[in-house]
């Protein structure tokens, strides 16, 4: 067992982990601000990936070039979903909210299959492909990019939420919408912002993923299930919780896959999840 191999596994694990984390952060942000679980989150990822792919197939634009546009488009899409759908059911029961986003998931999946077919599409030879070799360790560029891009995005999000006036308003609306509105904050605008930013996070993940993963109508399900686990593991609504949990999941699955069995690679992830839910229901970093 060489050190190089261990380093390789860890980098791969972190690469995937950052992707999971980025998806989970979007989820947890929306949940933290307005207590709504977005069941269509994986389908947002799928849309972002189709956008990256189509830009590549139509104009030959590299996913790296289109990243800002995909992120902006996904931000807009998040706002749209909030105003057209979520705001209409906010006053309704919990079930109404669940079924609204669940229905959106089914709709987006079916619509994608209707428009694009069930085929697999992949960006070929993107700028961020290939490998770099550092001291005998082979590091795939797309995964390095995922680590770099996702950590930058997380840092930016952190600054926005915890260091700016808008972030303060967002957190105020999250803590107590009524009190916030007496202070001149428009909670609805903050909710919309949360949906926009949450979707934009997925847009970053989608752009980075399309450097090495293929898109098809069900691609969201592959990633989002683990993102839900990351949200619950890290604590609902906790951004750094989602980050840590996402990385933990990424590492755990790669290491289990190699040292134990690849058929069982998600077992420790779900075991950890169960243990945390039983022993510490609010998650690793959740507020009680």
């Amino acid at each position, binding site marked *: 067992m060489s050190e190089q191999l261990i380093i390789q596994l860890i980098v791969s694990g972190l690469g995937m982990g950052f992707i999971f984390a980025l998806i989970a952060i979007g989820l947890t942000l929306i949940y933290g601000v307005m207590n709504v679980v977005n069941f269509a989150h994986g389908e947002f990822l799928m849309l972002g990936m189709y956008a990256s792919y189509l830009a590549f197939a139509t104009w030959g634009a590299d996913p790296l070039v289109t990243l800002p546009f995909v992120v902006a488009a996904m931000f807009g899409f998040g706002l749209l979903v909030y105003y057209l759908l979520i705001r209409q059911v906010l006053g309704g029961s919990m079930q109404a909210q669940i079924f609204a986003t669940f229905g959106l998931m089914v709709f987006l999946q079916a619509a994608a299959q209707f428009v694009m077919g069930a085929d697999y599409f992949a960006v070929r030879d993107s700028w961020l492909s290939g490998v770099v070799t550092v001291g005998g360790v082979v590091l795939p560029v797309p995964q390095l990019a995922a680590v770099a891009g996702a950590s930058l995005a997380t840092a930016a999000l952190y600054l926005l939420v915890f260091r700016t006036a808008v972030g303060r308003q967002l957190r105020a609306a999250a803590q107590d919408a009524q009190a916030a509105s007496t202070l001149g904050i428009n909670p609805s605008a903050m909710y919309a912002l949360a949906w926009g930013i949450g979707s934009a996070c997925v847009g970053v993940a989608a752009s980075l993923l399309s450097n090495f993963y293929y898109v*098809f*109508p069900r691609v969201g399900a592959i990633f989002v299930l683990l993102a839900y686990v990351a949200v619950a593991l890290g604590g609902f609504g906790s951004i750094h919780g989602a980050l840590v949990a996402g990385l933990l999941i990424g590492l755990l699955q*790669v290491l289990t896959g*190699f040292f134990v069995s*690849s058929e069982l*690679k998600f077992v420790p992830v779900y075991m950890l999840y169960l243990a945390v839910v039983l022993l510490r229901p609010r998650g690793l970093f959740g507020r009680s």
Partner: protein
Amino acid sequence: MPRNRSVFLKRGVVAAVAVAMAGLAAGAAVAADPVRVGALYPLSGQVAKSGEDTLNGIRLAIDIVNNTHAGLKMPFAAGAGLPALGGAKIELIAADHQGSPEIGAAEAERLIVQRKVAALIGAFHSSVAATSSQVAERMGVPYISGESEATTLTERGYRWFFRTTPSSRTQARDFFTFLRDINKSQNAGVQTIAVVHENTLWGQEFAKSVEGYFKDFSEFKPAIVVGYQQGTSDVTSEVQKLIAAKPDAVFHASYDAEAILFARTYKQFNFSPKGVLAIGAAFGSNAFRDALGGDANYFFVREHWSRDLAGRNPLIGQVGQMYRERYGKDMDGTPARAFTAMMVLADAINRAGSTDPEKIRAALAATRIAPSDMIMPWEGIQFDPTGQNTLTRGIFVQTLDGAPKMTWPADQAAIKLVWPRPAWR
């Protein structure tokens, strides 16, 4: 649905009037009712793409049966409908099982009970074929499978289950025969073999079959077996295990999505065994070639069908062309096999001369189809008592210059195979 219903009502009235008039005009003559065939395929979910391809193969077969295709020298092409049933057309009723054995069983029951299908065809996934054929067996409805390969499917002693495709065990044997042959003829130098498989019934059965053949082909040694879960987000750990095991050849049982993921990861980590050989069409599919470009070259697929065989059998070229025109993709072994299963079923229903399940079953069991009447490079179709077609033959196709080329057996090869595969660029 009011519009649909009114159309339905109108059609019903028209049909009733037509039947009454026909009855008046011709005395006892009855208009030929369509024969309903239920198709169970994954039309949404993880492998919807394969379900679509497979169903397209079936649609093409039904089109050839139902309509006149002059110039196509194939059973049912010249006339319209099934001649022995008064020109009755085949009506396809497709159901989506989403890759789930439970949904597959429920849909089989629905098709039989509510839609009154005369026979079932399916189901791509072996795991779903297992459960849905159980329902057919219980209810006494013929079930034909053109592409579900798990060996156990025909070892259950079922009366109503028929399979035209070779089982995964038969195919596993071809992998070894191929390697033994190229070890001799081209000094391929293969000794150790790794198996990579997805872990539903199909992949597991294939891995098991391969394991069993190491006894008969004792010049080969197993290197490692790597099973993985379908729908995985990355395969780094799987590939690192393979790298550590250093096999000469890798046998792959993967569906389309993971085939792309594995090939990309192989390249990333510069894993380059002498050859990668796959069961199922995934490593030579259109999606695979589109996604990987030049990197799709040199993979072998133990195929069932190749356009390169058109020179030996003009039907292959004609049907492949029709498929391409209709669905905008090249035909491969999966739709070709589904097409063939549907033609076999149509032939049996026609010989049965009725939609009575017992008669169709007897006709299926008595099937004799000559190589010149079908698009597969087989010696024909004839079922043994377990319902397995005994006349299949395997071929190996290698992607070269971006196109799948028939490379083995050597006497049918369109081009010389490349072995070992060159290093990744």
